């Protein structure tokens, strides 16, 4: 529990960079989304509540999938700087490779849930205020998930995204061990991929086959669909509005996305156990590019 508690509290919740780049950054863009980007939504004549809910879901999807990529940056540094300690603690301590991995999984899920909940609690009233300001008159209930079950489903997707991001982080860790002096750039790979797929999903339509195969896209769609209550995972994030009518996008079955993501997690976790068991010490001088 000591390592897990350290990662959740000291490395995440008490980390000022995480508060700035995780919470403040997310809330900043939600304010922009609420008051600036939503200006055109005042023209919606029918299904205003659905539009409001979908718009809120789009933004919370951004937060839910972005947050663990931010945590990954910090955790990767911890992983790389630990390379001296881990073999010693496995051999002469109580650490086992699965326990080490498990600590990161639990920490990532816990920290992601807490940070996402904080942002959601701030975001919903801001969005309600912004939408009404721009002429889309809806109650605050319209911005919440369709039902309690959908809310739980959304929480489940947040957990799944944190689990996937942890598994992916260990793959990125392999790369960081190979070229430690590029650790800073490497640690942002998950975040870069998130933004690439987020904007592809936001401004275009993803091919149906890509959504179960690429968790970055699939998880965004899954978060959206559970929040809004779609039967499946939509192929585009923003619904089209035509002649005042909201047109729902085509969908992919949710189970395919969950199965695809879990397959990635299982494969990457198995690889991670091998990595952790064979870690070699990387001196900090190599990481800082001094050697």
């Amino acid at each position, binding site marked *: *529990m*000591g*390592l897990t*508690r*350290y990662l959740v509290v*000291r*490395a995440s919740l008490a980390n000022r960079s995480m508060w700035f780049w995780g919470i403040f950054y997310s809330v900043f863009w939600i304010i922009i989304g609420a008051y600036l980007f939503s200006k055109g939504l005042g023209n919606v004549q029918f299904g205003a509540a659905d539009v409001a809910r979908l718009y809120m879901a789009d933004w919370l999807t951004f937060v839910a999938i972005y947050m663990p990529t931010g945590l990954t940056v910090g955790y990767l540094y*911890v992983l790389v*700087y*630990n390379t*001296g*300690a*881990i073999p*010693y*603690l496995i051999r*002469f*301590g*109580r*650490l086992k490779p699965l326990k080490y991995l498990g600590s990161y999984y639990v920490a990532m899920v816990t920290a992601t849930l807490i940070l996402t909940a904080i942002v959601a609690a701030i975001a919903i009233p801001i969005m309600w205020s912004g939408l009404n300001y721009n002429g889309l008159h809806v109650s605050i209930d319209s911005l919440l998930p369709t039902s309690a079950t959908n809310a739980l489903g959304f929480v489940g997707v947040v957990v799944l995204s944190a689990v996937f991001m942890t598994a992916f982080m260990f793959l990125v860790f392999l790369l960081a061990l190979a070229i430690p002096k590029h650790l800073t750039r490497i640690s942002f790979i998950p975040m870069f991929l998130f933004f690439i797929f987020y904007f592809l999903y936001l401004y275009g339509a993803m091919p149906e086959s890509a959504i179960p195969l690429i968790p970055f896209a699939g998880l965004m769609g899954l978060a959206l669909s559970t929040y809004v209550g779609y039967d499946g995972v939509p192929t585009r994030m923003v619904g089209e509005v035509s002649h005042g009518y909201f047109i729902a996008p085509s969908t992919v079955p949710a189970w395919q996305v969950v199965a695809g993501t879990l397959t990635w997690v299982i494969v990457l976790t198995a690889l991670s156990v091998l990595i952790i068991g064979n870690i070699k*010490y990387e*001196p*900090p001088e190599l990481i800082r590019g001094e050697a």
Partner: protein
Amino acid sequence: MRRKGLLEVSSNLPEIYRIGYSVSGLLEILEDLKGVDRDEFMEIMRRLNLNVKEILRRPVFALSAGQSALVRLALALSSRPKVMLIDEPFENVDPARRNVVVSMLLEYGEDGILVTHELDVLRAFKGLDAYLILEGRLYGPIGVGELLESGIVEGEAQGALLTVRIGERTYSIVKGGGVKFGELGSLNRLYGLLG
């Protein structure tokens, strides 16, 4: 009789303590993963006359060289190991605290290896065996007490306790003759004296 910990081997090498950002974070992790006893750690720090509250708050990298050596030693000993692998525990440590370090090394553990250049502190370990590493070559064993009473002379002497090679030359460690180890203070001075 001090209670033995479950986790038998402890070391104070700096690279194995890069698992937490601050000393308090490090302590929290090692309590879980190495069986470090927090109360034992606090007691050791008190004996070393270090300001525990201030040191706990500090990032590990912000400790001075002496503080880092003492904190790492305290963490290594706090798991009450059976076997200790201690590297240069006296380096950058002021003379007053060196005596405390010596007494703690004698108190804790049953077996182990102590690596040091500091010959003047070895008087407390007279009953133990010493090995010398000179230019990457290992020589020994020789009793610590014997070593401190011996000196080093050039050439191969009859009845030498050890024969060593430094640079291109051969030297012998003999009782009573030559440059005495007990008077050197630090093994580093040997290279300067032998030229």
